[in-house]
């Protein structure tokens, strides 16, 4: 009888039936002997079997009241369930009072024990463990390996066994809706979406840079003494036709990047100058810097007359005035 273990359901059923804590199985020797209130009697019990769980050990410890008695008392106690623990705990009340060590703690632990035991089923509550530790049974705790009660046979399992005649589709649904499989499927799906996102990332949403060489139309589009801003937004250049640089009528392309800090200046027709909105640098129509902090003139880019007669700008080459590069024939087109 002592070997037989009760499941939680059975204990609950018993509790409902009897309404009293001590069960037939709980009529363990530990209870009676502890009521006898003699810790020294505990070692005398026959060690019938190994302790089945931490709970057993704790209960025995409570019943014994001293650490020395605990390991030996537990085999005899052999409580298989919460009810056993409760019973043992109650018994321990008397034993604890008799025990020399910490009678107060023992009393408190007993008061708490039923509540804690109810809430955690057939495992020892934290309060129990702490109490056991206080009472000096730490050596027993690691030695004990909690043995789980036999799993009850769930009704769902039985149904699955009986379903051999069901259709493949129903089988598949059952299989897929099992939580374990559902989790794997969800993870796989997320991985797939993520993989697609990575693949999309490899094809960035960018604008392909326009070719550095492009035609800007015939010379006649750029009358003398003007600055054309029509290529500024698209290509970042101004096309200037002026005779102010060296007295000759030149067409050249200026890069619309301020030489101070790289903002885009504006061409002010009324003032006949390029003016930067960031720090106030100003450039003449020739591109020469004259006000504000810009340290050098705007840069020219390559320009030539293409074989078809239209002007062709080449942004891959730059010409800097301070390096004497504006004399380069590739940096301007001289009007006939």
């Amino acid at each position: 009888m002592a070997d037989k273990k009760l499941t939680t359901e059975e204990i609950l059923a018993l509790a409902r039936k009897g309404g009293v804590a001590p069960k037939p199985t709980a009529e363990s020797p530990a209870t009676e002997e502890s009521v006898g209130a003699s810790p020294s009697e505990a070692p005398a019990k026959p060690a019938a079997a190994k302790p089945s769980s931490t709970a057993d050990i704790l209960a025995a410890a409570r019943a014994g009241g001293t650490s020395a008695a605990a390991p030996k008392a537990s085999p005899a106690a052999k409580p298989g369930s919460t009810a056993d623990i409760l019973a043992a705990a109650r018994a321990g009340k008397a034993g604890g009072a008799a025990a020399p060590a910490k009678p107060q703690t023992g009393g408190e632990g007993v008061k708490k024990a039923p509540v804690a035991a109810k809430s955690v089923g057939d495992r020892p509550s934290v309060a129990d463990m702490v109490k056991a530790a206080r009472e000096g049974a730490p050596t027993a705790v690691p030695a004990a390996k909690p043995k789980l009660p036999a799993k009850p046979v769930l009704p769902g399992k039985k149904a699955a066994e009986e379903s051999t005649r069901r259709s493949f589709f129903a089988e598949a649904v059952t299989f897929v809706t099992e939580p374990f499989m559902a989790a794997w499927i969800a993870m796989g799906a997320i991985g797939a979406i993520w993989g697609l996102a990575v693949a999309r990332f490899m094809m960035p949403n960018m604008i392909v840079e326009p070719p550095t060489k492009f035609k800007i139309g015939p010379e006649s589009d750029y009358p003398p003494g003007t600055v054309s801003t029509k290529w500024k937004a698209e290509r970042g250049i101004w096309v200037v036709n002026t005779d102010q640089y060296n007295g000759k009528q030149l067409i050249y392309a200026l890069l619309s990047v301020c030489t101070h800090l790289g903002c885009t200046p504006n061409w002010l027709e009324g003032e006949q100058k390029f003016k930067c909105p960031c720090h106030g640098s100003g450039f003449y129509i020739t591109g020469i810097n004259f006000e504000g902090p810009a340290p050098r003139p705007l840069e020219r880019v390559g320009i030539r007359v293409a074989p078809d007669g239209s002007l062709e700008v080449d942004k891959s080459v730059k010409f800097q005035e301070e390096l004497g590069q504006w004399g380069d024939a590739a940096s301007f087109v001289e009007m006939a």
Partner: protein
Amino acid sequence: MDPHPDLTASVIRGLGWFYLLMAAMNAFWTIRVFKTGTYYESVAGFKHIPKAAPWAIFTALLFMVGAVQVRFDSDPADFVLKLPVVFKDLVDVVIANPISYFALSMVIFVAMIWLRRWWTKPTVAWILLNFAMLFLCVSMTDYDFRQIVGKPDNVPIVGMLFLVGFFTWLYFSKSVENDRRIAAGEPKIEDEQSEQVLVWPDLVYTEMICMLLLTALLIAWGIALQAPLEEPASAVKTPNPSKAPWYFLGLQEMLVYYDPWMAGVVLPSVILVGLMAIPYIDFNPKGNGYYTFDERKFSIITFLFGFLPLWVGMIVLGTFIRGPNWNMFGPYEYWDVHKLEVLNNIDLSQMFWVDWLGKPLPKPDPNASFWMQAGTIILREWLGFALILGYLFLLPPLLAVTVFRKFFIKMGFLRFMVLANLILLMGALPLKMALRWAFTLKYIVSIPEWFFNI
């Protein structure tokens, strides 16, 4: 009808609430003065006038103005409480000119230190606060002022200016009081206070109240002022004017006078390293744990000079004064994109060779070897190099034997050299500004070939 009317009825009503706020503030002040129970012995024949009386009259006046304006519904053109045009023009002329702007900021800075015993008196400080608020309020009747000050970006900056004023006042009022006590041999304010403060409830309650008020402020702010979003960024379209975040406007102002390499890298690094070096340079043990001005005049004046005119002053300049094309505009001036400012400036080498010697600028031969070119460039810029080297290497020893004699003896060579160089580099900014304004000087050393300009 004028598309940009100076005044609308809603603006006048809004200002009415502002006047009512001022009336409430002054009501509290009146009560505070009345509770002191002080009297003027005789004013214009009347005897025994309480000092609270003028404040009561002022409060009543503010209340009436506010009450009338809150219910304003007639023609805004008839509104009288606004700035005279003469005053606006005068302010515009003074503020829009960099020389007078910085001169004014220096005058205020010197007056702040010189008159610290006067302006830290509670009554004087209160009057100054009232003036500042009235100035703001009356100026709001101007369309251009309202545009620039009322911009959602700039409203918090206006608030912060009041905060800067308050904290400066707090420092000076405490240190003036402490200096008086030290001179009289009395214990300092801090000595009389307990060094310990209760966490609960004092600190925790204060923190909670601050948290609630700040949350309320943020919610009100978030609802009242919309986030200043602009059109999508474009590589070819730079907003005009193009302004840095407010806390970088000091740097942006530096960039007007220096090469990006100097103003963007060297000087900010020097500022940071210099601030970090303060504990190692400052050998004065006084002022540790208490407010004082007299015991550490040099360090406080140096710091405040760097902070108020050079940092806060330039943030104000960048926020409110700089307009299209980075020109300077008065606070009441229309932001005209075509405002013409003659800013032609030339390099020192140009001045030296062309203007003074009447020779053409030495031009490096592009075909010559690198060393030949370098020689020509250095010959072209020799005067600038000499000035810079002299400034950084000759001035410190010169200072050590003259102005900073005592410092040099106390500090030792290394610490003194660090201090002298930091001060000279800080002084380089206003010096370069002054040179730009006075002589239209662009760069002292200008070597665009090597991207090296000072």
